């Protein structure tokens, strides 16, 4: 107890610093948001080329910093995972807290196929996506009856059940010992054996995910998702089959998470049930909301920040997770829409006098059982 004062002082300092950092960054985020919204097609394309260019040469710039390279790979993998959850949460508005399960299914399918049956990576990768997608479908079905918090707990339950199966089904999964010795992926006889190779694989997957998200969001289906999220009854009355859309979101999200899992298995060469816990689901959830629910650039940024931040905070060891918690709280207070939130900008008239009643009710409707 002697260190009570010490701990409190350190945490208060951290809170104050975080507060100002968030305030300052918020300005930056607003600028970025304005920029994205104001940008015309031509500029937009140029910016994207620029970013893609940087991403493509990055590993060569980082070749002397393997730790940063590795962190970048993890960050991009979480971008994929966060975007995959964004299908479910951001698009369809379904609070799923068991997303790590799909990621785990993908990882285990690849691990088992590659280790036990010497299946080539590409096949294992596709199988991971399919199997995870099937589970996504299975989980999607009960969501048709359940809402909000009830759905949340069901998805937590699903995740936990899956983890327990991984732990207990020793004959197949080797239980808690996990599966070591997963081979590196190889394509047409060419084996990926360094982090630069892994970087490009995951980058490709991330591009694919962003592409699909983007196409979807700007289509009739994307608008349908938003409608269902805002008001399911009205959406049905407008001829939208909300059942289909919700299940579609779950299947897509699960399949892509499964792909990320498949990548992870070959990247770390070892899978273990502890990789796919409830906390992992929560982490992915935080990335999505912190970044900006439903906004693709936001979710990407959220995933990067929440992967890099804990690494950056390694220096303060014991205070690391306490500060992580504080960050979540302060972000939610100071920037409820997330880092980059396009909706917020679109509805830029909202402020403290806003028609809170009405819009709040709608959001309540989508996330809680009322």
């Amino acid at each position, binding site marked *: *107890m002697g*260190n*009570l004062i010490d*701990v409190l002082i350190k*945490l208060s300092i951290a809170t104050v610093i975080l507060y100002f950092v968030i305030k300052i960054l918020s300005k930056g985020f607003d600028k970025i948001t304005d920029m994205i919204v104001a940008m015309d097609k031509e500029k937009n394309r140029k910016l994207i080329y620029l970013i893609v260019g940087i991403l493509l040469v990055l590993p060569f710039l980082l070749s002397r910093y393997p730790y940063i390279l590795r962190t970048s790979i993890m960050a991009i993998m979480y971008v994929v995972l966060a975007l995959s959850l964004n299908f479910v*949460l951001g698009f369809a508005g379904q*609070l799923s807290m068991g997303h790590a399960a799909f990621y785990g299914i993908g990882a285990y399918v690849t691990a088992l196929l590659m280790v036990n049956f010497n299946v080539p990576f590409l096949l294992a990768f596709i199988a991971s996506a399919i199997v995870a997608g099937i589970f996504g479908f299975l989980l999607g079905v*009960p969501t048709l*009856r*359940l*809402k*909000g*918090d*009830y759905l*949340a*707990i*069901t998805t*937590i*339950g*699903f995740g*936990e*059940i899956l983890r*327990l*199966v991984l*732990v*207990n089904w020793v004959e197949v999964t080797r239980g808690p010992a996990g599966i070591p010795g997963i081979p590196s992926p190889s394509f047409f006889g060419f084996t990926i054996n360094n982090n630069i190779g892994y970087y490009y694989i995951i980058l490709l997957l991330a591009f694919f995910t962003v592409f699909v998200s983007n196409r979807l969001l700007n289509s009739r289906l994307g608008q349908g998702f938003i409608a269902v999220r805002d008001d399911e*009854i009205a959406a049905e009355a407008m001829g939208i089959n909300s059942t289909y859309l919700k299940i579609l979101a779950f299947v897509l999200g699960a399949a892509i998470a499964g792909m990320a899992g498949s990548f992870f298995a070959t990247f770390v060469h070892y899978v273990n049930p502890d990789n796919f816990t*409830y906390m992992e689901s929560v982490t992915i*959830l*935080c990335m999505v*909301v*912190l970044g900006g*629910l439903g906004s693709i650039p936001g979710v990407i940024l959220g995933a990067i920040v929440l992967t890099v931040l804990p690494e950056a905070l390694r220096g303060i060891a*014991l*205070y*690391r*997770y*306490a500060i*992580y*918690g*504080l*960050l*979540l*709280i302060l972000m*939610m*207070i100071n920037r*409820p*829409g997330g880092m980059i939130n396009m909706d917020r900008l679109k509805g830029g008239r909202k402020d*403290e006098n806003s028609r*809170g*009643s009405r819009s*709040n009710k709608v*959001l*309540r*409707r*989508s*996330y*809680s*059982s*009322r």
Partner: protein
Amino acid sequence: MFLEQLSNGIALGSLYALTAVGYTMVYGIIRLINFAHGDIYMMGAFFTYTAIVYFNLPLVPSFIIGMACAALLGVLIAKFAYTPVFKAPKINLFLCAIGMAIFLENFAMLLWGPETQSFPTIIQNQIYTFGGLKFTKLQAVILLISIFLALVLSYIVKKTKIGRAMRCASQDMVAARLMGINTNKIVFITFALGSALGAAAGTLVAMYYKAVYPMMGFSAGLKAFVAAVIGGIGSITGAMFGGLIMGVVESLGAAYISSGYRDAIAFIILIIILLFKPTGLFGKTVKEKV
């Protein structure tokens, strides 16, 4: 053996029930799955522990201090972390609670150290038998306390004016204020009450297992949440029964199916119940009028 397993289940279930009642009550008022409830429960246990071990106070005053500190903590949390987010979408509040849970766990670890501390033995464990069911004294105390609290809280929420005000605040804060209800006060009272209950549960559980540790709230919180949902979240009697059902199912499941799948069994029961009754056993289905 069945009867023995049944008593195991009821004993365990009453621990769940005790935690779930506080959980569900906070939910009932602000419609927030307070993920930090489990950690307030942990902090409460640590407060009592500190009073006993560091300040050498006797049990009862320590217990009361523990509850009071937790109530204060609950109010502080509500004031500085939750109320600023009330206007934002639901999911933000939810994340705020998750952030608070992570923070409290690590805060406790910084203060008290990461290791499991032994909680002093205070109540000697006498064994009672009751129609084939066996209970220790502490188990009986816990069961009685949780039934008592469930009754008192249901009464408060259902029958008293403040309870009605709580329910109004949970539905529409603005309209509640237009009735002259001081909604901030209501929220704080709710949190104080819920947190004190959490602390009571945490302390009793710590006494029961003779152990306190920073991570004790995590799985307890999750289990309490499951119990609350089985009973129909927001329903206090529901939480009570949800806790008991879960304890019994878990014990019997561990005994007759597999101890490795013990937690899975709890979740499977949960999912089955929700599929048939989407708002839990005692949950009210308030259908939306179109």
